[in-house]
């Protein structure tokens, strides 16, 4: 049973509430509409899919970040690809979501209340297809016009997550797929 994001938020609230007051940085940010794209570039074909319903919660005081996406929500141009992706490779009826849990380096240097561009490393664990692996990526935050955008791109080695590609399809599907994530973060207002 996975922790519900609501519980995670509640947890973060309780954890940060018990910490000594920090100066400067802080605040919790979230999105329920992160755009995630998936690219597989192999000698025979390029495969692309995307979704706009990634979730993410960031607690700036501790740098903790959690993100999740529903596998089924990825849309492919070809119905056959989408079917194979869900049924043969990701087995989305068994593993409906991919989850990342980790933390940002030096969150105190991210003053998301001030305009500017901030880069930092995100390290943690990614769970895809029921398998959890460590991973890290650079995240870029852009703050301006009262909006906060975060983006990152990273590679995922398909075999690392126990996803088997039949020999027949080996030239059609890349061994390493590229994922890009773009999202606008909103500050979680205390109620």
């Amino acid at each position: 049973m996975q922790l519900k994001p609501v519980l995670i938020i509640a947890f973060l609230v309780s954890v940060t509430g018990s910490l000594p007051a920090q100066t400067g940085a802080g605040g919790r940010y979230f999105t329920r509409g992160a755009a995630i794209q998936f690219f597989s570039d192999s000698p025979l074909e390029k495969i692309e899919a995307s979704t706009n319903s990634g979730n993410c919660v960031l607690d700036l005081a501790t740098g903790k970040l959690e993100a999740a996406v529903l596998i089924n929500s990825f849309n492919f141009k070809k119905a056959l690809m989408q079917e194979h992706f869900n049924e043969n490779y990701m087995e989305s009826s068994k593993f409906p979501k991919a989850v990342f849990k980790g933390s940002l380096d030096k969150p105190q240097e991210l003053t998301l209340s001030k305009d500017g561009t901030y880069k930092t490393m995100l390290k943690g664990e990614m769970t895809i297809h029921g398998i959890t692996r460590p991973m890290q990526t650079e995240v870029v935050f852009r703050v301006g016009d009262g909006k906060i955008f975060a983006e990152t791109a990273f590679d995922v080695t398909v075999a690392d997550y126990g996803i088997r590609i039949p020999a027949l399809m080996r030239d059609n599907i890349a061994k390493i797929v590229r994922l890009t994530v773009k999202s606008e973060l909103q500050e979680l207002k205390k109620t």
Partner: protein
Amino acid sequence: MKSKLTLLILILALSGVYIGYRMWNKPHLDIASAGPAASLTASELLAEYQSDESVANAKYLNKVISINGVIEAVSKEADQVSIRLATEDVMATVICNLDPFSSHAETEFVTGRNINLKGVCSGILTDVVLDRCVVINPSFK
């Protein structure tokens, strides 16, 4: 005799190509004409997911369902229209992403409107997500 055999092989090869081509270009499931596996309100669907996610997934995941609710918010990003349906839980909604493969009679929606949509259930994060949605009760202006 030989030419008949060549003709037969040619016909077989062509039909193979044709079947392969049809499979490759298999259309996405036509949501508008698909009979829904279940019909319920946004609050009911969310409540089922919140009480037991795996039971709800067994019932609804990857199935076409019909959903009724009141529009809480609408967002549009890169042509993807997402309609958020209000539920009894103030923290969570049912998100309906309009189908990018269907044509829609309307893409502008007002909040507060009662809406009935059909889409494929993708599961729950904070919100229950339905993808490939089509509107069943268009508004008449």
